[in-house]
């Protein structure tokens, strides 16, 4: 990848970081309600994988920690923030919220709140791709703790026997809500669990964009070539608690400091400075411009957008005027 592309990615990753940090503030200000799960610390995972994929062409599906994956898939950050503000202009028209970002036009197939729920949905999307005969793949991002759900095993098994074009990306942030992985999971290295399904898998440093990008390229090449599913485990860390209601008291400060010393944005930044493609002043200017954009455009759009009409609270439950409900046109 060229340095100019890496600079673009750095800007996107920094934008994602600032977007999420601004969500935190908006939550404290009570402009965002419900549950809010933030992504800072894990950015290299989504950006490394999706940079190697074809966002908007490939299908992406994930859990409730979904804002950044949607934005990298092509969603307008203004509309993502408007969704968090529960507005009609939000990607899901204010009906979904933080955990249910959907942007089907960009093939972002949603955020789902049941841990492990997207595993079979991703396999099903891959089945749809297979039936249509296109070269798309489905990429499913989930955390390590989801692998303790039955759907993990059921879906890997089906994806393999039916040779489905699905890439499962495990963002292993070492905690399932507040329980550390070694206290909940018999096998710490998640990629090893996949060998039971005869699916190729790999583990990579999820903090290093370049390494994630390289590993994802290999994985995506395999899936797109029609060779069936692949499982990529990325070792990463979330800076905040599981959600805003998580005090994050269960983690040692030394551990947190160790991981923040390997920040994915800073690592990429420093690498670009080292190669001479970026200066620290440029980076600071970039950061300032991002903060301004988020405040002046993103937050403003979300704040000024209208709420949904209460007369439409029963809309979208069932299909409207579906002729087959009446037995079709006879």
């Amino acid at each position, binding site marked *: 990848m060229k340095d100019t592309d890496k600079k673009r990615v750095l800007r996107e990753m920094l934008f994602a970081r600032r977007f999420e940090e601004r969500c935190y503030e908006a939550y404290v200000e009570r402009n965002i309600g419900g549950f809010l799960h933030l992504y800072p610390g894990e950015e290299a995972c989504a950006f490394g994988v999706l940079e190697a994929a074809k966002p908007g062409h490939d299908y992406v*599906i994930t859990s409730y920690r979904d804002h950044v994956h949607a934005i990298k898939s092509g969603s307008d950050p203004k509309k993502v923030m408007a969704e968090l503000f529960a507005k009609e202009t*939000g*990607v*899901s*028209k*204010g*009906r*979904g919220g933080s955990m*249910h970002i*959907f*942007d*089907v*036009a960009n093939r972002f*197939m*949603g955020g*789902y*709140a*049941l841990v492990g*729920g997207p*595993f*079979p*949905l*991703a*396999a*099903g*999307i*891959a*089945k*749809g*791709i*297979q*039936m*249509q005969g296109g070269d798309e793949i489905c990429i499913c991002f989930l955390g390590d703790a989801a692998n303790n759900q*039955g*759907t993990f095993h*059921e*879906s890997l*098994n*089906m994806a393999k*026997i*039916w040779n489905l074009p699905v890439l499962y990306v495990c963002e292993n942030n070492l905690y399932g809500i507040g329980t550390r992985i070694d206290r909940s999971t018999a096998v710490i290295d998640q990629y090893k669990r996949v060998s039971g399904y005869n699916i190729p898998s790999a583990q990579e440093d999820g903090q290093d964009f370049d390494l994630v990008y390289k590993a994802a390229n290999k994985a995506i090449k395999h899936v797109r070539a029609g060779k069936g599913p692949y499982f990529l485990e990325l070792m990463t860390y979330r800076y905040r608690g599981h959600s805003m209601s998580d005090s994050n008291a269960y983690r040692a400060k030394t551990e947190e400091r160790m991981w923040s010393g390997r920040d994915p944005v800073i690592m990429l930044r420093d690498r670009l400075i080292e190669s001479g493609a970026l200066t620290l002043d440029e980076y600071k200017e970039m950061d300032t411009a991002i903060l301004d954009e988020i405040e002046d455009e993103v937050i403003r759009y979300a704040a000024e957008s209208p709420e949904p009409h209460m007369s439409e609270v029963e*809309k*979208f*439950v*069932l*299909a409207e005027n*579906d002729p*087959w*409900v*009446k*037995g*079709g046109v*006879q």
Partner: protein
Amino acid sequence: MADIMMWEAIMRAHDEEMANDPMVIAMGEDIGVVGGTYKATMGLYDKYGEQRVIDTPISENGYTGLGIGASFLGVRPIIEIMSVNFAWLAMDQIFNTAAKVRYMSGGQLQAPVVIRSPGGTAHQLGSQHSARMEKVFMGVAGLRVVTPSNPRQAYGLLKSAVRCNDPVFINEHELMYNMRGDVSEEEYFHPLEGSEVAREGKDVTLFGYNISVHWCLKAAGLLSKHHGIEAEVVDLFALSPLDREGIRNSVSKTHRAVIVEEAEPAVGVGAEVMAIINEECFFELDAAPVRVSALNVPIPYNHAMEKAALPDENDVVQAVRNMFGI
């Protein structure tokens, strides 16, 4: 008209819909090579191949979720869950995804899946193979629930369910696959909403669905013959949404209502129909509505106990006699 069995009607609907649309697929345990536990997909594997007639692993939540995910891309899966008791395992995907995805995506996604499954109590299958779960499915917004009482409905309901853009749960019955009935030789699409008057009457309405329609019809015959009571039988083939207008019309005519369900009484079809009667036509009533239900027990293995746990036409007759004080 062709006089065929319920399984043949269901198989014919599959066949026609799969021939009509290459995106229609069938999936479930033993539905392909074997042709289905109840033969409902017999012959389809040879005709349409393993890509479209899919023998799944025994992973109910997994393959139901897979069908739902495929439906996001325009695939029309007909998912057979071999026994409704196993559908408990797929509730996560049915309720959390299929029923909610249209709403929580602001109308961007839909899950047009059909989930067919036999419920009901057969013969001595024991507690874990005798569940009646229609009431569970009925209670969730975003899901349609229909339940055929004869081959014509089984055929036409499946045809419409495949084409409808909503997720549809079809509650079949283990004991009814060999039931015979007339099905039009011409293509037929049954409405997914409404009810049917299976027998006209003026003195009392017996509301039934699926197998209990047949208990109601037998009871109506006995009531007419022995007691001079002419019962109307209303077939609630659509359980969600229930036909408020049909319920109101019949009760407004007969002024008496008995709801007959194979399931336990709590939070069931009977309770729901009674609530609708209260809301729609309470002042039409000449007597308090009554429900005839199963006992509130897991179904026993012992055959006599099993029969004792379930209602039949005699219980319906008794309920009507009690209502009339005869």
